[in-house]
Each structure stands twice: as structure tokens, then as C-alpha cells.
């Protein structure tokens, strides 16, 4: 496989100095993850214990409301809960009872902590234990924090998956666990590829329902499909499982490297690997090349958003011919982001955290051809003449693995293409 790979750059960004600033962070909180997690896990309900702000965020953040009966809701804290007039745990028990009575199809209930519930130190862990006893075996109740004081955007999924790891059954069997919520169609493609490589004991976390046979033990190895799963990574290590570090499966190169790390671990013959990956790799390269025409030679600037920034910068610079000016990520963890940073040629400013006004100053100064940023910044920057790609779409769209590589490149190409059509100079 190596002959078709672009060689890694001599000096990657793994040891590059990181700019760390502290100021206003224009990011979502971890509750946002519920918007995709509640669709992924079809027998789960996410009950946020929080304020009206939490409920308002959930219905606003997705840009559109998902009005099919949502499998999430907010237990809104009221004055009486805060003043101690109500026993918060009694209140919660009552709301959960109503909810589970109305939705008998729910098998997993997540109590999701929020900023207010954390500040008043509402012990959701205790609540989850109590409710698990009450509703077992029909419903499993877990808790995690999606609060803004604890989590940034995609860290909500991380916290959710990390909460699931300790309750997974133990196994001595050798198995592969693939970690990270993917759209069902992408997950099926991935399972098809792994099956083709002859790896048959594959489990996915999170699974679509509680009924899956996923188990963890000392002979488990796991691969991450999302770069924001730091806590889950730590929780799996605590269970004795071993991480297979690799670049993330975005773009042709990332997908191949990711699969290769697994293939090596499972001793897959290189001919088999070639046979299985040859056709999809060709398709991916072809599709990327099409979209990359628009991107080639252009510069890109990433505001921190989902922690997907580093793998995406690697994809855009190495497969689409772009130049990265700044790559901002809310958090950078070497064990997870290292392999992608290694492939990212030195040059861009790597930054962690944010002072949004200072970063906007840098962005205006750099005048990138494309700015990847959150929804709060996109239209204002467009109005200043900068082309933008709103970052949340990258989390809400199937972008992983070979068959989506072209779509991923197109997501970035579209704003530039649109400007051309509309006859606005993309400066």
C-alpha cells in the first residue's frame, strides 16, 4: 500500500509549539452531542437536568429542529428546586417515572448534567444508581455531564461513551471495538471493509441498541473513529483494552492508514489489504480530485470547534492541495491527535483553546481563502468578504471512510464554488 502514499513531511506538526489563549470561547457545550446521539442509539433517551437555556440550546443548536418525537428532553430546574423547597431527587424520580411510562420503548436512559446542575452539585450519579435499581432489568440508567463548564461541543459524546464503558460486560476474548458514533450507512461500510480484511469479532461503541454483544477485556483492542474521545480512550485503557493509534479515517489517506493499523494488529496479509482497499481507494481519490480542483492552492484557517480540525487540516493539505494558516482545536491530546499532527506539514499555527476576538484579529490579518468556524461567526465573516464553512456541518454529515472522502472535500469546495457562481470575488 505504501507506494501510493504521499510520504510524511520531514517536519510534521507533532512537536510544533502550540498557541494557547484564554478568553471568550465561541463554542457549543457538550449537550449539543445529544442531537446526533439520540438518533444513533434508538432505544435511548437523554434527559438533561438543567435550565431553560439548555432546552433552548438543544432546539436551536442543530439549526433545524428535529420534530419527529425527540428522544431527549430537559427537566427544567425551577426556583423551588434551587431554594431547596423541593427535594431535587424526588422531583427527578417523578419526571423519570412519567417519561418511562410514556415511552415504554426506552431501554437506556441517560441523565445528562448541565451547568446549573453541576453548580448546585446535584448528584446525578447517585440518581442513576437509584433509578437503575428501580427500573432494572428493563432500563439501564447512566449519567454524564454535558455541561459547558465541563465539556466543549463534541466532548459531550466523549463523556457519554465514557460513561458506558464501565458497565460493558467483561470478556477474555480477542476482539476489536470501534469507538465513535458514525452515521449508520458509514458504519456499515466500515464493517464491510473490516469483514473483507477477515476481522470478524468487531463491535461498535455506541451500538444502535442496548442488545449488542459488545464486551471489553485485556484482549480487546480498539480504534477511535472520532478525534474527540479522550475520556472514552482513558476509560477503555482502565478496562485493560489497548488503543491502536492511527490517523483518523477521513479522506483516502486517513482511511487507509486507519485500516492499516488494524490490519497490522490482526496480521492481515498485505495482498488481502490491497484487494480489499484497492477499488474504494481509487474511487475515493477520483472523487476527491474532482472537488479538490476548487481547493487546490487555497488557504484555510480553522477556528476551534469539534476537535476534528487537525485530521481535517491533514486531509485538506495533503489530499486537496490546500495550505493551512491556523489550525485551532478546543483541545489537543498527543495520544489521539499525534498521528495526524505528524502528517501535517510544518507551517500552520497550531492553537488550542480560544480568545475569539484575538483569533478573529488573526484571521482578518491572514485573509484565508476559506475559514472553518462556528455558526455564530460564519455570516459576520462572510459579510466581511471571507468565505466560510460552518464547522457543525462536518459533524452532522457523513464524512468518514472512503466513500465519503469526495463528499468531505465537496463540503469545503462548495462555499468557494458558490461564490464563483454568484460572481462574488472570493478574495
Amino acid at each position, binding site marked *: 500500500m505504501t507506494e501510493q502514499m504521499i510520504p510524511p513531511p520531514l517536519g510534521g506538526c507533532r512537536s510544533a509549539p502550540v498557541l494557547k489563549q484564554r478568553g471568550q470561547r465561541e463554542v457549543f457545550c457538550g449537550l449539543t452531542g445529544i442531537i446526533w446521539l439520540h438518533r444513533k442509539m434508538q432505544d435511548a433517551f437523554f434527559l438533561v437536568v438543567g435550565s431553560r437555556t439548555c432546552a433552548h440550546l438543544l432546539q436551536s443548536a442543530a439549526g433545524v429542529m428535529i420534530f419527529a418525537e425527540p428522544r431527549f428532553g430537559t427537566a427544567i430546574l425551577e426556583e423551588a428546586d434551587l431554594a431547596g423547597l423541593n427535594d431535587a431527587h424526588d422531583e427527578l424520580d417523578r419526571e423519570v417515572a412519567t417519561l418511562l411510562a410514556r415511552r415504554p420503548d426506552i431501554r437506556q436512559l441517560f441523565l445528562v448534567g448541565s451547568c446549573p446542575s453541576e453548580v448546585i452539585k446535584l448528584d446525578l450519579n447517585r440518581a442513576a444508581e437509584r433509578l437503575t435499581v428501580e427500573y432494572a432489568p428493563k432500563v439501564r440508567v447512566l449519567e454524564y455531564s454535558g*455541561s459547558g463548564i465541563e465539556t466543549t461541543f463534541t466532548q459531550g459524546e466523549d463523556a457519554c461513551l465514557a460513561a458506558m464503558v464501565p458497565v460493558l460486560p467483561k470478556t477474555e476474548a480477542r476482539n476489536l471495538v470501534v469507538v465513535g458514533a458514525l452515521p449508520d450507512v458509514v458504519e456499515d461500510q466500515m464493517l464491510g471493509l473490516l469483514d473483507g480484511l477477515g476481522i470478524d469479532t468487531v463491535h461498535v461503541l455506541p451500538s444502535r441498541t442496548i442488545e449488542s454483544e459488545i464486551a471489553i477485556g485485556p484482549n480487546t483492542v480498539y480504534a477511535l473513529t472520532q478525534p474527540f474521545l479522550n475520556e472514552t480512550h482513558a476509560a477503555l485503557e482502565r478496562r485493560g483494552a489497548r488503543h491502536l493509534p492511527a490517523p483518523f479515517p477521513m479522506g483516502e489517506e486517513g482511511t487507509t492508514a486507519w485500516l492499516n493499523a488494524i490490519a497490522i494488529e490482526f496480521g492481515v496479509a498485505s495482498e488481502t489489504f490491497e484487494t480489499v482497499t484497492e477499488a474504494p481507494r481509487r474511487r475515493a481519490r477520483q472523487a476527491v480530485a474532482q472537488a479538490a480542483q476548487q481547493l487546490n492552492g487555497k488557504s484555510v484557517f480553522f477556528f476551534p470547534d469539534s476537535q476534528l480540525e487537525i485530521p481535517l487540516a491533514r486531509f485538506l493539505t495533503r489530499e486537496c492541495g490546500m495550505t493551512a494558516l491556523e489550525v485551532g482545536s478546543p483541545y489537543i491530546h498527543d495520544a489521539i491527535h499525534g498521528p495526524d499532527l505528524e502528517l501535517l506539514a510544518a507551517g500552520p499555527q497550531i492553537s488550542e483553546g480560544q480568545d475569539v476576538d484575538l483569533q478573529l484579529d488573526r484571521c482578518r490579518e491572514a485573509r484565508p481563502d476559506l475559514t472553518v468556524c462556528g*455558526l455564530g461567526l460564519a455570516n*459576520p465573516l462572510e459579510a466581511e468578504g471571507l468565505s466560510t464553512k460552518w464547522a457543525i456541518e462536518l459533524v452532522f454529515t457523513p464524512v468518514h471512510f472512503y466513500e465519503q472522502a469526495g463528499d468531505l472535500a465537496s463540503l469545503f469546495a462548495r462555499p468557494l464554488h458558490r461564490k464563483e457562481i454568484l460572481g462574488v470575488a472570493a478574495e
Partner: protein
Amino acid sequence: MKLTVWTYEGPPHVGAMRVATGMKGLHYVLHAPQGDTYADLLFTMIERRDHRPPVTYTTFQARDLGADTAGLFKDACQDAYDRFQPEAIIVGASCTAELIQDDPGGLAETMGLPIPVIALELPSYQRKENFGADETFFQIVKHLAQPMEKTKRVSCNIIGPTALGFRHRDDVAEITNLLYELGIEVNVTGPMGATPADIAKMGQAHFNLLLYPETGETAARYCEKTFDQPYTKVIPIGAGATWDFIEEIRTLSGSTNKIDSERLRQTWWSRSVDSTYLTGKRVFIFGDGTHVKAAARVARDEMGFEVVGMGCYNREFARDVRALAKEYGVEALITDDYLLVEQTIEDLQPEMILGTQMERHIGKRLGIPCAVISAPVHVQDFPARYSPQMGFEGANVLFDTWIHPLVMGLEEHLLHMFRDDFEFNDAAGPSHHGGHSPKKAASAPEQIEAPVDDNVIWLTDAERELKKIPFFVRGKARRNTESYAADRGLNQISVDTLYEAKAHFAR
């Protein structure tokens, strides 16, 4: 604790943001955790604003809680002043910051900024978005507006429009025009478009127009008391209300200018024979109190609809809406529980919903046409075109937007006559909504076919006959027949019962 699936109003600090974002030269420093910045996208995405809202968030995190969140607030406040150089600053806390009790108002005061600093107390666990906007604007007016001599020419202030308001942009333009025709000057329009310096001279006006009581009533009352400015009580939505509004302004101003109403087409459009099919259409109205009250009058008196239910989500207007509902002979639904609104609509089976974007989704699920008349609104409710709700043009817009979701007159008849046509049938939906006729829309109403009342059984023939009735009246037919049967103690519905009931309820 109260379980909420969807909420009609955001928290009160979002109301304050609507005021700050509508104004110019004002900055809002909000003590809030990381994540509360989501509120920016309400303005940049839903309203398509090309500037960030003038809000600085302290975005504290867990590690700051043990340390110095008060210091963080002061730094953010100073940075905001240095960078944006506003004429005035409002400061406050979001729900989480309220719990840590840093007192942003007190902190900002000690900083000695050379501009007015207005502290907001918005109780997040008791109140909501509209209150937040109303209270914020009141505090701004109270702090900044000075007693002044009245202008020589008769002038007024327009009070209430905010950022993210439902059609506020166009309503203000329409009403400003109307005032021009009446020979009255606009002194200040606020919060939308006003600077703190503008607010300072609000006292110059002779009277106030209160367009949106939800967001401006407290300020209007304050001005009445402090500056001796009476304010208007009529909301000029609909032709009749616009004429009443003009009369009210004439009384307040003494203006006798003639008003050119040639642009008002709604009254003729409504009288023209094509509109006959609108007669007695059963509508359910839900939204904020002000828009609901106005819509009820238009629906009954100007469109010829039958109002079968109404309600509002803001309790502040519960009394008004209850009184009006009584006058209309219906039950008022005062709730912010989305599921309860959905249930009520399902029970009432109206032929049309006049609601918010939430009811639009209810309508989609139940197969009932819906037009949006009130906030909360989504991106499609911020049209590029001029589209006011108020004044004469507003009345025209109401006519167009309310009949758009409906199946048109003759089409309705044809559906009755040829209901089994494979292309042109009720499941296809209104033919002018090409893309909106998926199978789903047809299956949704089917779900409600199951008899609701266990005591009354639909015989197979009757059930089949019921299905032949076009979907947009099927719900009503089912409901009428069942109540007819129940009234007569029948426990079975036959085809005869169905037609007996039809004759009984014939209008």
C-alpha cells in the same frame, strides 16, 4: 422540575440579547459559562445578521469556579469596553452565573467605566425571554432617558421592536410610513435601531406607539408616568385594527390628515367571490398573546373563519386571552407545554392552524395546514421581501399567507367529486405545493382514524365512507359524527349515522 421537549421562549438573557442586538452603540457583557454563546447563532443564522451580536460572554469553565470568576467578569467587561467602545453597557448573568452570585452589576460599577453601566436582574429560573426583553428595555430607558421639552411638531416614539422579532423590521417601516401620512414625526424607534443617545431623548415625544407589548409595555408605562406620554393600546394587525389604530393616533395627536387606503386590497380580496370557500373554515390560533388577539379578530371578522380555539404561551397575557376566548365562545389554552398544544389541536381537528413555527410542525404531523402568525420563528420566517404584519400592507400579507397553505376553492370541490383519481386525490395535498405532497403527509392523518372513543364503534362501511371524505375535512366529519352519536347514545356508527350527522351539522 418540569419536563420540556420544546420551548416557546428562551431564557430571559436571550430577551436581553434581542434588545442589545437590535440597538446600536450598546454592548452586553454577560456572565455565562462556555456554551451559552450558542445564542449568537439565533441572530447570525436564523435572522441572517451580518454582524456578531454585541455580546461578550465571560465563558467560565469548571476550573474557574474555584478561582476568581468575579475577576474574569471584570476582565471581560474591561476588554469589551476597550475593544468595542460602546456608548453604554448592560451587564447581567445567565442561569448558571446567577447561581454563583458574583453580582455583575456591582462588579461593573466598581470599575469606574466612563459610560453608563446598566445592571440587569433577570431571574432565569422564574421568567423567560419576553420578560427579559421587556425588563432590559425598561432598565435602559429608565437609566438613560431624560426629561426634555417636547418637540415643536407632534412626534411619537415607536416602542417594542427588537432583533429576532417576528416581522419587526417591516412592521416598523409600515407604521413609520403611516405616521408620515398622518404628519407625525418619529422621535425615537427602540430598541431596534436606537443608540443610547437616542434613548436619552425619548422624553421629547408627545406620545408613544406600543407595537409589541410583550417587549415594550413596561417601558411604555414608565414613559407615561415619567414623561407624561400616553401610549397606544390598539395593535394595528388587520384592516379593522389598523383603522382603529389610526383613530387612536388622531385622538392622541390631533392629526386630521387624510389616509390613502388604496393599497389596502385585503378587504376586497376577502369579499370577492373566490374567497367564499374560506367561509367558516375552522381555525385554531396559538402564539404570543398580542398576535393571537389580533389574529382572532382578523380570522373571524375579516376572513370569515370560525375560531375553534385559541391560546398563548406567555402567561403574562393569560387574562387578556381568556377574556377574548370567552367572547369567542371557546376555551383558552394557556400553556407553554408543546405536547399539550399538540394534543389540543389533535382533539379539535381544525381545518387550519394559525400558530408559531412549533405549530407548523404539529400541522405537518397531523396533516393540517398552518400559517405562522407569531414568534417563535425560524429562518423561513425572515423573508427577503417586504412582508409586514401591521398596517394596510400587513393586512394584505395576512390574507396571502393565511390562504396559501389551504387547498383552493375549486380544487376543493374537485377533490370532493373525484376523490379516487390516482393523480389528483386528497393525499396529494394542495396542488400549488408541488414538493409538499409526499406519501407521509397522507399516512399521518390515517393514524388518527382509529376510533378515539371506545364506546362508539365505526362499522366497516362507515369507516370506508369516512375515508372517501377529503383529508382536510375528514377530521371534522369524524368528530362531528362521534359527538352526534354520543349525544344520541348510539354505540355504533353506520353510513347512515355519518350522513345523519352531516345533515345535522350542515351549515
